[in-house]
């Protein structure tokens, strides 16, 4: 398999584009014409060759550019990457999980050679050739979690399990939907979910936490989450709200199709072996409305979902101000035809 990596930006001139192939494999998050919160967790099994669910850690045409964007964000704000001292072991567990998975799933892009604790890692797309000693942090240029998450698309939270709860005690967060690692670090599961409306009354978090505390090694799970973002910007952080918040006001009827993006997170959860911690990769996929409507089923369905969404959810997801423009645009691509079940395109 060969991937042509895009030379593109996620800020300033926003040259980010999805190729026709990337559009087809976009993880459209709605399996029916309406949306409400649910735990919606399923096993993270390999399905559908070519889809984002084919491999444990999806690598796509945006990989190199996303890692470049992450490096810019980290230079401006090093606190986007933090690891409390007791999380080193979990960081090493994650190094192993990513390197083993990528070397097996993408042998032409990544190689891992292990001789006991002496490891040799080759990352061709990023031009990295690293020999190091597993569990010896002095043999890597930075901490183990930072090292591997500078080479892995998506944000990553490492959750420690103790006192019958999960604690966000380490993470790399540069492509987030308006939440802050620096604010959440050290919080438990209920604390970091406190701002989410409606779900608490529904008991969603209690059930989700109980499920996650029992997450088994070798049996990762996944779910999709979504929001809306103006311009293809990865770093929609509270820290930089002054940069991207005003961009919400640049939307009009002429540019909404090109500038308004559906932002989908492929969230996976993995039990780690040595540390008993959980790693929570949050992989972000962006697609403009005008690309979405090239798949007729998605255009129809997105129109119905956004039109009927409760106000507080549109408010929480931060696009209430532009909802009328978005719904008007999508209405032109909804002929009222019945849509098929499931998230994938019809043909």
């Amino acid at each position, binding site marked *: 398999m060969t991937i042509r990596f895009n030379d593109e930006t996620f800020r300033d001139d926003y040259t980010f584009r999805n190729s026709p192939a990337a559009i087809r494999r976009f993880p459209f998050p709605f399996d029916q014409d309406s949306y409400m919160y649910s735990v919606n967790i399923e096993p993270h099994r390999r399905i559908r060759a070519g889809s984002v669910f084919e491999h444990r850690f999806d690598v796509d045409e945006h990989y190199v550019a996303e890692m470049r964007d992450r490096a810019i964000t980290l230079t401006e704000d090093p606190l986007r990457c933090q690891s409390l001292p007791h*999380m080193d072991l979990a960081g090493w567990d994650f190094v192993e999980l990513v390197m083993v998975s990528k070397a097996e799933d993408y042998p032409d892009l990544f190689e891992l050679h292990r001789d006991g604790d002496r490891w040799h890692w080759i990352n061709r797309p990023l031009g990295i050739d690293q020999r190091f000693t597993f569990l010896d942090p002095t043999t890597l240029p930075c901490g183990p979690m930072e090292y591997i998450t500078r080479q892995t698309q998506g944000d990553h939270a490492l959750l420690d*399990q*103790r006192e019958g709860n999960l604690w966000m005690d380490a993470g790399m967060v540069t492509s987030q939907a308006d939440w802050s690692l620096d604010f959440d670090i050290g919080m438990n599961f209920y604390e970091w979910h406190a701002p989410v409306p409606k779900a608490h009354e529904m008991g969603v978090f209690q059930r989700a936490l109980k499920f996650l505390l*029992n997450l088994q*090694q*070798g049996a990762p799970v996944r779910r999709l989450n979504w929001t809306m973002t103006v311009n293809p910007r990865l770093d929609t952080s509270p820290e930089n709200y002054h940069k991207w918040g005003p961009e919400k006001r640049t939307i009009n009827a002429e540019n909404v199709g090109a500038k308004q993006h559906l932002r989908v997170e492929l969230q996976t959860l993995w039990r780690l*072996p*040595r540390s*008993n911690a959980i790693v929570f990769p949050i992989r972000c996929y962006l697609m403009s409305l005008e690309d979405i409507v090239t798949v007729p089923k998605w255009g129809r369905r997105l129109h119905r979902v956004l039109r009927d969404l409760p106000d507080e959810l549109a408010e929480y997801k931060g696009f209430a101000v532009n909802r009328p423009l978005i719904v008007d645009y999508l209405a032109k691509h909804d002929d009222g035809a019945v849509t098929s079940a499931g998230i994938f395109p019809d043909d």
Partner: protein
Amino acid sequence: MTARMLCVTGVQPISPLVTRFRLEHPDGQALPLFSGGAHVVVEMPDDGTLRRNAYSLISDPMDGSGYEIAVRREDAGRGGSRFMHHCVRPGDRLRVTMPTNLFALDLTARRHVLIGGGIGITPFLAQLRQLQRLQRPFELHYAARSRDEAAGLRLLPALPQIHVHISSEGNRIDPGAILSGQPLGTHVYTCGPVGLIEAVANAGARLGWPKAALHSEAFLAPTPGKPFQVTLAGSGRTIAVGAHQSLLEALEANGIAVDWSCRGGACGRCETRVAACHGRIEHHDHWLSGDQKAAQATIMPCVSRFQGSALVLDLQEAQ
């Protein structure tokens, strides 16, 4: 629950009652690593009855070449440990689940104090290897009634941090003495008889330890009891639970799938709703709160039993 068939490659008596078993992948593949305190559930096809018992892993968590467990023969138990002792030989195959940890080290601790009584020493055998590898300060206390019974003496390495307390030799373990004077940020872990766990909890409370710094695991196996019956709300079918059978085992024997993990009343996975209860549920688990137990609206079928005229479970039969 993911499980794999492993090969028994070693059966070694450690004491009159305790035997060590080594399990390896039949093709020599590496097994998943684990964290200190983790257990596996071993399936035992015992003369038509499928038993599943949880055992702490005692081998090095960083060594995937095999898993080791130490099994104490419980002559008054339901039969799982007797099966392991009498029927399992090198070369046999046993189905074993992935490791799960309900008794993990709190890695935020500045110092770890491990207290094991009797066969309760087992989770600490893996934990102390993890602590050594991580170079964290720790001490381990092992309590046993007599030297003959003390299987732990043959399982523990010779380390200055390890202290042995043999009560028949007048050296009874004193939790108050162990806990007093520990530096701030110390965590204590106790595994063994309920009396030992309570003694450590009491000493901790008396000395003002934070609750979150006191960890314990009772090696809770389902206890035998009187036979009883349950009814399934969906089909109205009645299931008989034998004296030496857990409710979970009886449901499984009748083809009723219930999700499970630890089978010891600790993880919460098999929690089952009660549709009607005329009688008293004997709650033996550590999962439900006191209020939940009193309400008799849920039961943990892995360890809990029932006495009375009718217990109706909110379970559906697979089509």
